[in-house]
């Protein structure tokens, strides 16, 4: 099968993300990349756990003083639902319905942007309470871990948006199908990392 070939709904292969050799390589290579990313976040988690609540003096706020359930819960919901909508998008990609895929991707991007907006708002609050990147080792480790994740979300938004814009005029083919698929894999990965951040940083932070 050629990457440039034109398809109809009938001739579209069952797994377009793995239909060509280039696509297979991309698919596998991205899984490996996510393996490396896991070590990256693992190292950041380890750093955070080692430096949690390590502050220069008692006036500095600790995890239990800072984190609040309603805000983080809402952010978590935004991101989890965006992962679901990206699954819908990939469902339509596999069925060769380009417009529906674009629509679900747009919803995914919107939810991701909401998450990012809440995160910025949350960070702003913490800064007002005296919990900044430079105020303590706890602050550095917190913003490094959660900020790295936020940076990944921002990059993912730009990535999915540029894919949508670039291919808006020409629809699906075997050249861009694996690109969409890999972007959605990345988005799931970000979501999984957030599940761990929610547990390790926020839930464990609130119970002390």
């Amino acid at each position, binding site marked *: 099968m050629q990457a440039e070939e034109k398809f109809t709904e009938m001739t579209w292969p069952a797994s377009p993300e793995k239909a060509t050799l280039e696509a297979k390589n991309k698919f*596998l290579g991205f899984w490996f990349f996510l*393996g*490396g990313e896991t*070590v990256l976040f693992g190292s950041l988690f380890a750093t955070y756990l080692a430096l949690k609540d390590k502050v220069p003096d008692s006036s500095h706020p600790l995890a239990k003083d800072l984190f609040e359930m309603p805000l983080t819960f809402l952010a978590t919901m935004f991101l989890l639902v965006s992962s679901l909508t990206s699954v819908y998008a990939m469902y339509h990609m596999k069925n060769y319905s380009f417009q529906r895929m674009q629509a679900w991707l747009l919803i995914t991007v919107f939810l991701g942007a909401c998450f990012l907006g809440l995160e910025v708002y949350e960070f702003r609050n913490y800064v007002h309470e005296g919990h900044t990147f430079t105020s*303590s080792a706890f602050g550095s480790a917190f913003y*490094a871990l959660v900020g790295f994740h936020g940076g990944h979300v921002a990059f993912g938004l730009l990535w999915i948006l540029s894919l949508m814009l*670039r291919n808006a005029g020409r629809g699906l083919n075997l050249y861009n199908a694996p690109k969409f698929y890999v972007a959605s894999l990345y988005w799931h990965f970000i979501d999984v990392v957030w599940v761990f951040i929610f547990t390790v940083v926020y839930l464990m932070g609130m119970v002390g």
Partner: protein
Amino acid sequence: MSTIAQKKGFGATVWDYLTTVDHKKIAILYLMAGGIFFLAGGLEALFIRIQLAVPNNDFVSAGLYNQILTMHGTTMIFLAAMPLIFAFMNAAVPLQIGARDVAFPFVNALGFWLFFFGGIFLNCSWFLGGAPDAGWTSYASLTLNAKSHGVDFYILGLQISGIGTLIGGINFLVTIVNMRAPGMTYMRMPLFTWSSFVTSALILFAFPALTVGLFLLMFDRMFGGNFFDVSAGGNTIIWEHLFWIFGHPEVYILILPAFGLFSEIFATFSRKRLFGYSSMVFATVLIGFLGFMVWAHHMFTVGMGPIANAIFAVATMAIAVPTGIKIFNWLFTMWGGSIKFTTPMHYAVAFIPSFVAGGVTGIMNAVAAADYQYHDSYFVVAHFHYVIVGGVVLALLAGTHYYWPKMFGTMLSEVLGKITFWLFLIGFHLTFFIQHFLGLMGMPRRVFTYLPNQGWDTGNMVSSIGAFFMGIAVIIMLINVVVTQVKGVKVGNDPWGDGRSLEWSIPSPPPFYNFKQLPLVRGLDPFWIEKMEGKKGMTPAEPLGDIHMPNASFLPVTISFGLFVAAFGILFHVDDKPWALPVMIIGLGITLVSMLIRSVKDDHGFHIHKEDLENEDKGVKA
């Protein structure tokens, strides 16, 4: 196609190499860049030995000595050994598995240029206020308060070249999984391909830890972070853990491909199938796995407590088992073989006792209680030079001679090669053997000078003389390279006459599409099997058809160059230089725009048509 035979101008050749995505040309780039950094690191080593040749020497000052020492280690590990290994991986692995290129040719080129610009950036420190001076391990307790920008060059330079290595590793993993020729099952892959596979996996899971460590250090030094600042609640031990979680697998990243190269050489020149092939594969994977379990043996004296020390000590000793399996397999490969003592075989035979000596001192160091005595002494210096020079560097020199004909189509002189070998081997043992005893007599590592009459004077002089033997050996090898290339005597497909794997079944150097028709692999050592049945070449697995090839691209250079520029901005932003921020933005802009161009511009590659391939055949015959 006639373009191959065309004579190109100098400019066209340079442009060709700047834009190439061909793994064989990238191999040559890695070999040249890694070779130049190897010479730089070697020069630094000679300066160290000149300074230490006699007590109370003042050849260099204490501060400059620290810079030379740091740069020697950093250059040799990151900028010489790693890229030279990547050179042979690029040159041999796609050919050994019967592929036309790697899985991601563009990423392959990008990996090289990131490494290259990272290395150049690191070495710019010499001219911009002093090189890093906190040792190649760059412990946070030293680096946090370092006054010069040296350490910042270390952080940013290694960050850039580290990304290059990481994507190079992913590329080889996918290549080996997806691009194997028909019949090339996992258990038929040559050992060098297997070790490259395991090494790539180690790169993938080890380098992100270094990335994070370098980020944290960068935040602390340049952006007001407090990860390692004890007064703000930080902890410097975090750096040590992150560094060694990367750093220990790193030594296996270096040594496994060396094992792979020697496995090829032993089998080829014993003219015998590698003994215990499956146990070799198993041992390689096991070493890779255990390599992640032992990082804290670098930190026995930190104070982790007896339980942690005991666990890491036992895990470390366990690695001796798979390594011992390998040593015996190599010995048994030679046993009963019809051995041909070529230059690569000289290195291979010398490697066994040298590396075993390094392994034995490794076990001594692994005994945590005893390590309190060895720690930070010349005993440790002797140990790791025995494994790295006696293992990795001997393999790289052997590989240079072994694969030179396949990479360049000419044969290095065997006479000069053997002179290089003997000078290097004698110099190596002269330099480092005595250092075991210097260490046991109490000489500490990293000191820039020492007082006379402590029993160290003669030992240090002997060690310095040995270093010059190695220096002369390398110069003779360079002469060998120049003489060989000037003579330019071309060789055939299988210049050693005893090639076993697929790379020896195609011309030297191979055409840019490697295999006109993908070969059918019928067992381990596929080319040997065909030769034993009286055939000249491989049986094709497919009819002659169009070949799909990737397009050349200049973007890898611009992406890497952008990061190189941005790094200067980040580095000097600490000094409140007004130009620092714009430089950073411009640099990142170059990188991001290049990445965007790469994303939005479709790159379908091109096809070499069947007719052109047929014409080429006729052209050769006519």
